[in-house]
């Protein structure tokens, strides 16, 4: 296991590359979820029929 982790001495490079990729993809996904929730709540608040249109 340890040997696999060391990646033939190049572990630092391999894992940092995969780490950054995972980080960027996950951050994009989390930010996306946040945007969906924000848009949904704003629409719920505004689209209620009996609600006047003041924010």
């Amino acid at each position, binding site marked *: 296991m340890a040997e696999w982790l060391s990646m033939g001495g190049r572990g630092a490079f391999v894992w940092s590359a995969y780490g950054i990729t995972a980080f960027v993809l996950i951050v994009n996904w989390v930010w996306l979820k946040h945007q969906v929730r924000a848009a949904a709540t704003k629409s719920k608040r*505004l689209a209620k029929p009996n609600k006047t*249109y*003041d*924010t």
Partner: protein
Amino acid sequence: MTSVDAVLSAIDLTSWRGETCVLNEVSLSLSAGQILQVVGPNGSGKTTLLRTLAGLALPDDGQVMWQGNNIEHDRSTFQSQLLYLGHKPGVSGALTPRENLLAFLHVRQASPDLTQLDDALDALALGERKELPCRWLSAGQQRRVALARLVLEPVNLWILDEPLNALDVDGIAWVVDRIEEHAERGGMVLFTTHQPMPLVRRQAQQVLLSEVEMSS
């Protein structure tokens, strides 16, 4: 509401500016010899309507029809029959009134009749300023240089956005005469104004743009 002989007609024009709706399903029509005034409080979309009718701005929904077909399909024939004067003077400060007008005339007409150029400038009291770059002219005088095109260009449709701005009494009288003459010759005029437009020989129909429901 579009009458059968309408030359210019707008059908359910809708325009948004980001979150706010600026034009909400506006329809109107204009036929030969007719003068139409667009009336409405500030922010009711008058300028947007005029710019959309002139083909400058694209509506989000609805159509503008010229002689039966959509202006977007054949923009150049429509716009070569149109003269639009907006808020901006439409005159380059570095050039003299003559140079400004000559440039527009040569681009818009194959062989423009230049004899009337000097008479038009004289009629607008710009005679002795013909050779002065326009940046030295007052706003009213620059507006007059642009208005000279009303008599110099043989077009059918005039769309004038507050043409009387910055004009003095004789200037206003001159514009009113031209509008009435144009209508009598079968031309069409669509305009907005905040000052009274003292039409005498012909009356202007009115289109009321209601205050648009302010959104979030």
